[in-house]
């Protein structure tokens, strides 16, 4: 077994593209679920509309890269408003069902033949990231040291991605220690009590939905730019569920919970895959093929999510007294 490759890919996964984009998605969910108690099961849709907003603006409309970013952000905010109006007055479980349904609607429309001219069907869109890489300050070449070696494109994506993660965390930190964040946390505990104290609960939930959706949409941009393409099936419900696993792993209602969670999640996923597929190739494991090893990882994700919620709902670093998850 090639331990050197296994360890280097594992270490790289800690700061890799997936880690960044899932961290962003989970930071958004943290605002929704961790702080406000909103069960948004459609986070993938926010990433999708942002990624497609960028892709379609650049490829179909022929507008520059920055216009695409603006369109993507506006699309995410608009989606939050559209989702919020019918659902934010409903009970938590209804919100979950409606958001998951809306995310599926969006995915089905993006992959439909009827709108193939715009969204590119199940192949998605590509060729919209040139504007982004044109801004790359790093000349072509390899950068880094030891295991952390990246080419100039990946380095640029990761730099921008981690800056976005940092800014998002800073934003969440600033907001959650302000009176605004206090109202959000109070809504999570009991929204009727908050209403009786003169706060417009609907408005705060909406603000939370927009904020978390926009932060999550940054993950959609990162995906689109890093892989220079968007496909509809990337933004399925499992993406949202993985983001939830990450959030709970790192600790809901903690500023760095989603970031730590995402790093652990991807490190474990890559490590398990590396070790198991290495073992399969080396013939140590004979009851699985290497394809099945890939699938086996996600089975472990499911198992991990169950065990986490049951035995450590506050996440790895959470404080049991403050867990958001047992509310109601």
């Amino acid at each position, binding site marked *: 077994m090639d331990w050197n490759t296994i360890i280097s890919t594992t270490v790289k996964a800690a700061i890799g593209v997936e880690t960044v984009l899932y961290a962003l998605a989970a930071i958004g969910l943290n605002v929704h679920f961790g702080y406000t108690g909103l069960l948004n099961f459609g986070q993938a849709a926010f990433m999708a509309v942002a990624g497609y907003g960028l892709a379609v603006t650049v490829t179909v409309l022929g507008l520059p890269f920055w216009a695409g970013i603006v369109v993507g952000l506006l699309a995410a905010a608009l989606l939050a408003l559209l989702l919020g109006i019918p659902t934010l007055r409903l009970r938590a479980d209804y919100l979950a069902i409606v958001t998951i349904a809306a995310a599926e609607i969006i995915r089905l429309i993006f992959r439909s033949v009827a709108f193939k001219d715009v969204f590119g069907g199940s192949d998605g869109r590509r060729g919209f990231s040139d504007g982004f890489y044109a801004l790359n300050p790093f000349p072509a070449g390899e950068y880094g040291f030891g295991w952390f070696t990246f080419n100039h494109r990946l380095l640029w994506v990761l730099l921008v991605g981690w800056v976005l993660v940092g800014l998002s965390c800073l934003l969440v930190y600033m907001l959650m220690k302000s009176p605004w964040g206090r109202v959000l946390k109070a809504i999570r505990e009991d929204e*009727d*009590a908050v*209403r009786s104290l003169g706060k417009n609960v609907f408005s705060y939930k909406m603000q939370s939905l927009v904020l978390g959706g926009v932060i999550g949409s940054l993950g959609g941009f990162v995906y689109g730019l890093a892989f220079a393409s968007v496909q509809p099936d990337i933004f399925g419900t499992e993406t949202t569920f993985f983001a939830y696993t990450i959030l709970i792993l790192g600790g809901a209602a903690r500023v760095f919970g989603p970031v730590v969670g995402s790093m652990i999640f991807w490190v474990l996923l890559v490590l398990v895959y590396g070790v198991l597929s290495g073992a399969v190739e080396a013939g140590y494991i004979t009851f699985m093929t290497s394809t099945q090893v890939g699938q086996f990882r996600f089975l472990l994700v499911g198992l991990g999510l169950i065990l986490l919620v049951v035995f450590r709902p506050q996440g790895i670093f959470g404080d049991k007294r403050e867990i958001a998850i047992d509310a109601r």
Partner: protein
Amino acid sequence: MHAETTATDRKAAALAAFKDLDRDPGVAKPDPILVVDGVVRRFGGLTAVDVDHVEVQRGSITALIGPNGAGKTTFFNQLTGFDTADAGQWTFNGRNMHGVPPHKVARAGMVRTFQLTKALSKLTVIENMRLGAQAQKGESFWRALVPGFWRDQEAEITERAEELLVRFKLDKKRDDFAGSLSGGQRKLLEMARALMVQPELVMLDEPMAGVNPALTQSLLGHVKDLREQGMTVLFVEHDMDMVRDISDWVIVMAQGAVISEGPPDTIMSDPRVIDAYLGAHHDAPLSESELEKQLHEAEAALEEEIVEETQK
């Protein structure tokens, strides 16, 4: 009144206002803060509230009593916007309040508490208190991002909150999670938090329910205090001793309607009230408690059936 030792001007003023009033339901008060007309709320076939006319005198402590299922809490929910009335009008300080959402009701100066306390468990006591303050600059999204905008106000709010905590003897719990408080302390916290709103009318839904007897006296004192500070109190209560002790005026509801009003020392001798409490309405539509009782009986019968069949 027997238990009143701190008869003040406000108490006297409140009693004077009620002095010559009729005992009829819906009687006009000299200076009403809340005037209710024709509020109706139905759940399916059940009319939970059907209040023709009722007024609440400013600066008084008014008790709202009635047997279980009389519609008191539902009536509270209508008035505070937590539930939408099917019909009716009501004004608070002359302002029409029908269809006004709960947060605006609170901002107008009409603040309620809940029968089952709603302490925000995973917030600390002081954060619970701060939440009650109105017009906070830091509660707007953009200004929240610049602490300079709201820091001074936050300090003022904290000071006011701490004073209230001292008054309610919760200052030692300042930084504890609200979830760690006892039932009675939560009631105190909820009342103190409501005062942070600086209301004119405080509406308490069973403030004594589930409070241990040692705390009852302290809570009673706080309710009386509210009147001394110029607020109006409307509260729902079952304990007649307490009603007699602190209220200036009593409104009695049964089966959704106001059936009688009067001063606390004579109200319980009103035949309409006795009827309401002791029954004599077997032909009337089912009230909530009766429904529950019937359900109970049905379940019991069902269970008997199960027992019988399993024994066969």
